């Protein structure tokens, strides 16, 4: 509650430019990578990133200088994707999962995958294997892995970016990793492990 009601800033033009160049632009590569992995299309990814930066500038007065710009930008990008891109794309939008339940009922799956997939097999996947496996996951699962493993966001930051409770972040991440392992397992098999 208090966070939403945080003091609105009133930056002047010089300050706006400084924040934009100094705090927003350094994240352009991460933003593009995220956008590309959401859309799988270079032009869509570019549009999505540009949209995000334009919105960031427009709403810059609700950004507190010196706070977590990267999480703030990722949240805008993710909302733009849901509201504008996901709607027009043909891919199914909602994955049917009972996340909380899944977290607690996946012990058997865990055990099977862990014993089947070897660490050295994963370490030998230095080509597109992991990337392809990641891309094959449903968008909500792909997203939590990107945010956590690639971008290093904490669960708390992810909860804010995705507008979901931390418990849901953690169960979705757990489920996403199991699905990823399942994909990696079949790659490992084809590699002869």
């Amino acid at each position, binding site marked *: 509650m208090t966070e939403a009601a945080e003091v609105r800033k009133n930056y002047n033009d010089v300050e706006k430019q400084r924040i*934009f160049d100094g705090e927003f632009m350094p994240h352009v590569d991460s933003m593009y990578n995220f956008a590309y992995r959401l859309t799988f299309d270079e032009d869509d990814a570019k549009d999505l990133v540009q949209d995000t930066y334009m919105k960031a500038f427009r709403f810059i007065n609700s950004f507190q200088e010196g706070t977590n710009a990267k999480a703030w930008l990722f949240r805008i990008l993710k909302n733009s994707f849901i509201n504008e891109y996901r709607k027009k794309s043909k891919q199914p939008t909602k994955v049917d999962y009972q996340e909380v339940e899944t977290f607690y009922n996946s012990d058997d799956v865990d055990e099977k995958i862990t014993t089947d997939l070897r660490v050295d097999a994963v370490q030998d*996947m230095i080509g597109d294997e*992991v990337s392809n496996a990641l891309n094959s996951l449903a968008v909500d699962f792909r997203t939590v892995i990107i945010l956590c493993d690639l971008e290093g966001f904490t669960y708390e930051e992810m909860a804010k970016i995705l507008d979901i409770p931390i418990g849901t972040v953690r169960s979705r991440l757990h489920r996403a990793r199991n699905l990823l392992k399942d994909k990696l397992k079949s790659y490992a098999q084809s590699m002869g492990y």
Partner: protein
Amino acid sequence: MPRMQPEEKKLEVEECQQLLQLIVDGQATPEQTIAFQEHICSCKKCDEKFKLDSAIKEAIKKTCGCHQAPQELVSTIQGALQNLR
């Protein structure tokens, strides 16, 4: 008695998994880290899962960050910004 046991075991596994996730993601407290380290000394399953999960996380970091923003995107953004103001 016989009915109690599976439940107890399940809770333990749950705790292990949640702890393991925190450790792999570097978000455990020092106390949790110590507890986990003690646990994997005697639990081969968790030790293996920890190594596998860490290896996958490492592999993602190494091989999935490859889409750099195209050069012209930055100038397009800067240009659009000029028009906005």
